[in-house]
């Protein structure tokens, strides 16, 4: 799509009506909690799949969502404070504070992932319209919409750099640098992605996990055997409920695949090294990608499933690898590891030592572990594989049984207490 093509520009009300359950939208009417006067133009409450959310323009009603303990969806579209408040405020003394949406930013920056926050970039978003994405659990960007701190016009005036919207902050930029979790081609895809993301999460930290009925059976389990190595997505598809895998940041750090899925109806975060991309090595970016998923899942009580097949030591920056190892260690949700092939080097690092009763380690026959691949041993020789050497076909049932057992009959999200304050963007 050429940068000259203007995306269709529905009003906020139209966005919300297409995103939410039909007829469920109630625009904000009055003064709102701790905020400036709000109006219908700022958004309001609606239902998504029967569950309440607050939808607002570029983060303006975030506090309402937090007070109501349900998700917040920011429809980001606009040039930010300059357009909204800048002109109006220029002559008043409140320039800086008002312009940058200060009070709102303060609330968002101090947020501890108590309610899920989603940002949808549906039109060019600069200034405070862009800021919120850096504090959101999930960002979906529409092709043709530009996301950047400042727009090309200010850039040209301030720095003489001439760039197009697409070059500055188009979807090609943010699919590669990981700032967009999902790239959507159409508005309908944007709405569907938001609904899908929220479907895996509780309404707020501590609320019941949205477990669906007994999950649809998958096939006979992941395919293994002679022939090309199955990619991470095939493995995930084989282990999780059919069609449930919702991938995040697909084109960023492809050596590791991350996303949300369901296992026997239970929402989980899935993280898999992908032997089909860069041999499954963990790069520095892969550590960032994985850490974001771990933090999100820990904050909202989603169990984590790691599928590990990673080669001998590759070299992410030491601190980034340790950051991920720290996140995995500090995560308090149930964690399951499936060693599908090689657990070496940094891949072994992130497996960490499972040591809590809620953790499960499964190794497939032939799996090998050891820090350096030249010195690795079959996984069953290692103590941490003692939970079980299982065939791929047995794995799904074992994971599901374990999660059912540790979560109990009516699973409530038990959010971690530490990672919820970690950086939101990685």
């Amino acid at each position, binding site marked *: 799509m050429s940068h000259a093509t203007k995306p269709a520009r529905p009003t906020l009300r139209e966005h919300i009506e297409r995103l939410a359950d039909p007829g469920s939208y109630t625009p904000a009417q009055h003064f709102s909690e701790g905020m400036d006067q709000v109006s219908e133009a700022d958004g309001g409450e609606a239902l998504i799949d029967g569950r309440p959310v607050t939808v607002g323009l570029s983060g303006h009603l975030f506090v309402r969502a937090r007070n109501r303990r349900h998700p917040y969806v920011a429809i980001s579209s606009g040039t930010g404070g*300059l357009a909204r408040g800048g002109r109006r405020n220029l002559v008043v*003394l409140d320039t800086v504070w008002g312009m940058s949406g200060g009070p709102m930013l303060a609330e968002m*920056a101090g947020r501890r992932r108590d309610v899920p926050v989603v940002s949808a970039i549906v039109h060019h978003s600069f200034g405070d319209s862009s800021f919120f994405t850096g504090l959101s659990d999930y960002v979906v960007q529409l092709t043709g919409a530009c996301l950047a701190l400042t727009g090309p016009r200010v850039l040209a*005036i301030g720095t003489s750099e001439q760039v197009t919207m697409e070059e500055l902050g188009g979807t090609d930029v943010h699919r590669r640098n990981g700032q967009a979790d999902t790239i959507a081609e159409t508005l309908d895809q944007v709405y569907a992605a938001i609904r899908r993301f929220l479907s895996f999460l509780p309404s707020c930290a501590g609320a019941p996990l949205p477990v669906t009925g007994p999950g649809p059976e998958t096939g006979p389990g992941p395919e293994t055997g002679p022939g090309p190595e199955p990619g991470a997505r095939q493995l995930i598809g084989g282990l999780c409920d059919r069609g449930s895998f919702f991938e995040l940041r697909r084109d960023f750090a492809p050596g590791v695949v991350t996303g949300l899925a369901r296992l026997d109806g239970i929402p989980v975060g899935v993280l898999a090294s992908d032997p089909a991309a860069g041999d499954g090595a963990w790069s520095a970016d892969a550590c960032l990608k994985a850490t974001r998923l771990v933090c999100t899942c820990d904050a909202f009580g989603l169990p984590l499933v790691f599928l590990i097949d990673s080669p001998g030591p590759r070299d992410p920056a030491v*601190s980034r690898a340790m950051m991920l190892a720290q996140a995995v260690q500090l995560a308090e949700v149930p964690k399951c590891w499936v060693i599908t092939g090689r657990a070496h080097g940094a891949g072994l690092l992130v497996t960490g*030592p499972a040591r809590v009763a809620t953790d499960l380690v499964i190794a497939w026959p032939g799996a090998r572990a050891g820090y350096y691949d030249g010195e690795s041993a079959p996984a069953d020789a290692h*103590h941490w594989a003692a939970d079980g050497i299982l065939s791929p076909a047995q794995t799904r049932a074992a994971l599901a049984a374990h999660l059912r057992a540790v979560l109990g009959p009516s699973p409530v999200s038990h959010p971690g207490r530490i990672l919820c304050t970690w950086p939101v963007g*990685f």
Partner: protein
Amino acid sequence: MTRPLTAGAGPEESPEESSGQSPEKSAGQSTAGSPEEIPEEIRTVERLRGLREQVTTQMGGPEAVSALHAAGRRTAREHIAGLVDPGSFLEIGTFATFVDKVTAPDPGPYGGGIVGGHATLDGRPVTVAVDDGSVAAPARRSTGKAARLYQMALQQHRPYIEIAHGDAVPDLAARPGKTGTQSARTFGAEPAFPYLLERQRAIPVVSMVLGDTSGASSFSAGLCDLLIQLEGTRLSLARSGADGKAAADGETAADGKTAADGKTAASGEVDAVVASPDEAYALARRFLSYLPSYAGGPLPVTDAPDAESYDDQIARLVPARRSRAYDMKAVIRRICDEGSFLELKPSYARNIITGLGRLAGIPVGVLANAPMRMAGGLTPECCLKAVSFVCLCDGFGIPLLVLQDTPGFLVSAQAERDRAIVRVMTLLQAMSLITVPTVSVVIRKAFGLAFVILDGNRAVDLSLAWPGAEIGFMDPPVAANVLFEPQIKQLPEQERAAFLAAKAAELGVGFEPYGVAANLTIDEIVEPGATRSVVASYLRTSLAERPPRTAPSPLASWPRWY
């Protein structure tokens, strides 16, 4: 070493004996024969002395020690002797050995690849663990020993220092207690690997990379508060050579650290690159002198030098014309106690300055823009550097002083590709979560989001500005251009410059500090000459009346680098 020694045979030892060597005995002498006439209790002591002598002098073997020396390197014990106060070292785990050697007939080499114990630095207790370079790599490092030493440091509320110069294969797969095997139980039930993963800055941790380092030895570098690296050394998760084929990957070129091509300094992970081990020891000592021995502990406040007098020189360091550059470090040095400023990460993201100093004897963290570098504009790397520093200060209760002179975040297509939004917002998040007393001073200019963030988004305790400061939503000339673009377009070419200048001047009036002081966007306008005394007296009273922390700061758990 032919005589077997069971792991449980370590006798009670007194500090004098363990720290001192027995010069009158030569290695091996005491183990040769035990005359009948000597009473048993003396023979057991002599045996201990002999063994200790052997362990401490021979380490991994005379050839290995000579090889180290020939390569210009030091043994673990030489490192410790250089680092700690003379005579203060109390060794722990002298007779520890490798995991798979515990029940072997010949358990050596002793030490388990690490020499460590307790000591003092400038009279304050610390615990050290040093790679034993005389033990041939790839030895399976007994990470259990480092874990034990760290655990002791944690329990005793004292800093923990690791000196890394080896390639140890981490025994990550060991799962102590899980199967109850004897070998898994070597150093207690502590898991081997995660001893630092859950540290959450409870005690200061210093990691010194004083030789090529990889494997388990590299882990503390990613989890410490201060990372010092010796010039010319290599630090990575994987060893170089056959196994480390990734060393030549593109990924490594970007993120790895190879001092030979200057990558060490380029990576912000390293706080300081040093030319010699002695420099590293001195730096560690100096760094720890600003920190409490544990999070929540009393700050090491020194005798207060004069902080009352008016500084009539400092204003002259800052040119009034805001396009003129000046040395912010000179301003920092005048505000801090003389000679107290220690810069960290001096060669990374140099448009922001981070370092520790003292103000009237009180340790402070200084975060300052550097107008000498890109006019003090902020890049995504600056945000990384600032976040890492703020976490350090907040984790250990060190007050923060922010000195602002920045045109804002440097916007460009490259910055957006470098994840500017996420980096900037993470800095905002960090500044919003600060729990230590924080004072911000706008020295000359502060615009837009950069001001909002560096001012802690109104989370700072005290927000000051110098009388010549400009504070606004955007640099006035750029703002005029952006705001009045439609009018400008309608003007004839020759009138545009004057129109712009007039509009910029109009905007500029609102940017004077009196404007933002009027609605308390800043709390006070302060004379440059009084800055030091105002901040010092504020910090003194603020710290004196501060209630003890009831919960750890959220930032204490943040990664050291993200």
